[in-house]
């Protein structure tokens, strides 16, 4: 697993992807943070920043996950990994950890930096701040897991990227569709899928085990499904 993780981390920084990710993430998140706090004057609200940054994921998460599995399939390097003395879980988890490190690293570092001006010019609630960071991190890790799963379904990294963009948009906006639906069963089902409603607990400063478990199991389910996709290839590839 460590070998896979190290290779993916190196691959992020020997190609433009890692730099593009960092550049876009720091530029856009910095700008959004400024808009929501410094520029907002009396309405300054960092919880608002954390809610908006979720929408940045539509662009930056696919950047991290689009190549992870699809490129292996296309270049037939999956043959190397699948005939090496490691398990499929090692492969999938190594890749997941690499993407999570990229995302989590930049997000946590940026959040720590943004806290400095908040503490200098105001009295932020540290517990609430950490709650928001944790919530956003969990949402991001779930999206990465979904991105890896979609990447394992195709050998074209652009299809993988657009698929992931679609999935993230759906999960972010599904709760806003709810008000247009009359059937209550459907409405309940859709709000169950909604990421944003789960996340909102964290942004209110409520630590909810339900949501924590929801996000962790969402990641786990899609990583598991990715392993199944690899497994299935063993049986049906021609």
């Amino acid at each position, binding site marked *: 697993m460590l070998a896979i993780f190290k290779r993916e981390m190196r691959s992020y920084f*020997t190609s433009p992807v890692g730099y593009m990710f960092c550049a876009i993430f720091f530029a856009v998140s910095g700008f959004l943070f400024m808009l929501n706090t410094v520029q907002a004057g009396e309405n300054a609200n960092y919880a608002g920043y954390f809610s908006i940054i979720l929408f940045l994921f539509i662009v930056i998460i696919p950047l991290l996950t689009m190549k992870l599995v699809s490129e292996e399939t296309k270049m*037939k390097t999956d*043959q190397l990994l699948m*005939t090496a*003395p490691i398990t499929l879980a090692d492969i999938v988890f190594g890749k997941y950890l690499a993407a999570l490190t990229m995302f989590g690293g930049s997000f946590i570092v940026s959040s720590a930096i943004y806290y400095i001006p908040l503490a200098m010019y105001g009295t932020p609630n540290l517990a609430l701040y950490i709650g928001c960071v944790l919530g956003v991190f969990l949402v991001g890790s779930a999206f990465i897991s979904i991105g890896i799963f979609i990447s394992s379904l195709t050998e074209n990294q652009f299809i993988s990227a657009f698929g992931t963009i679609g999935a993230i948009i759906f999960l972010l906006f599904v709760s806003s569709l709810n008000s247009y639906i009359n059937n209550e069963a459907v409405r309940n089902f859709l709000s169950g899928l909604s990421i944003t409603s789960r996340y909102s607990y964290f942004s209110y400063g409520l630590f909810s085990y339900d949501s924590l478990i929801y996000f962790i199991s969402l990641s786990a389910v899609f990583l598991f499904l990715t392993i199944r996709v690899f497994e299935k290839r063993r049986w049906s590839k*021609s």
Partner: protein
Amino acid sequence: MNTMIKVEHLIKQYGERYAVNDISFEVKKGEIVGFLGPNGAGKSTTMNILTGYLSSTSGKAMVDGLDILEHPLAVKKKIGFLPETPPLYLEMTVREYLYFIYDLKKCTLNRRAHIEEVCRVVKIEDTLDRMIKNLSKGYRQRVGIAGAIIGNPEVIIFDEPTNGLDPKQIIDIRNLIRELGKERTIILSTHILSEVKAVCDRILIINEGKIVADELTENIEGALRGNRRIAIRIEGPSATVLSALKKIPGVIYAEISVAHEDGSATFIVESKNEIDVRKPIFYMLAQRSWPILSLEFTGANLEDIFISVVDEAEEAAEHKKA
């Protein structure tokens, strides 16, 4: 010698189609075995099952007494595999790539010394810091082979190792495989007959997912039904020469293949495999003062061998039915 690889009644089915249809064979420790067969015969599929890349529909594949399905990690540790397309990460340097494989295989040998040794064996020491995408096809193939032999696996499986290389590279790679085969068990696949003849101790001919012949290399031609063919260039009246050639005992077929401008002609003469007609032809021609300008075996090519082997298998099947 003990058995290193044992395959029993292996079947791989895709829907209605059988890619591998009931293959059984054994490979002894230290043997070099060649899989010979046309494209799509099931060579790659068999290799992919042995290395754990694909699962078989039914049947058993064992390496050193361990079943690949029951002990996948232990078996994979014993095998070095070079797939048909070398699995290279183009954006890595050769050194980074080999170090990655070293980590992937969880090797315990001294990393630096081992990788240096592997590079010396496959002769890529001077490309270590180049990106793989900038390497020529021959070098990429070598890097693939280097990856396969990292960790000194007891078994090495090469899927068409010389495919697409130039003649000089092909000779180099064949020598390399022979060198590796001194201490290891090797399976390689190819669709070139001369290649297996040059490298392997034993040949398995595979066609349509079945083994149609399993012979030691020195016996393969004798074992295959088929005729011995020679091409002779003779100076003399071609029509008379032809009828004289046909009269030689043992000759079953003769024809004029090329009539040359200097009045000579090249004849193709076929005889039964066990009869050597070169001497009687020589004495006959000497008697008539028709000089031989050249004489060579044209040999059976893979297609001929194939046709004969496949025909034989079909005949046997029909015989069984009757």
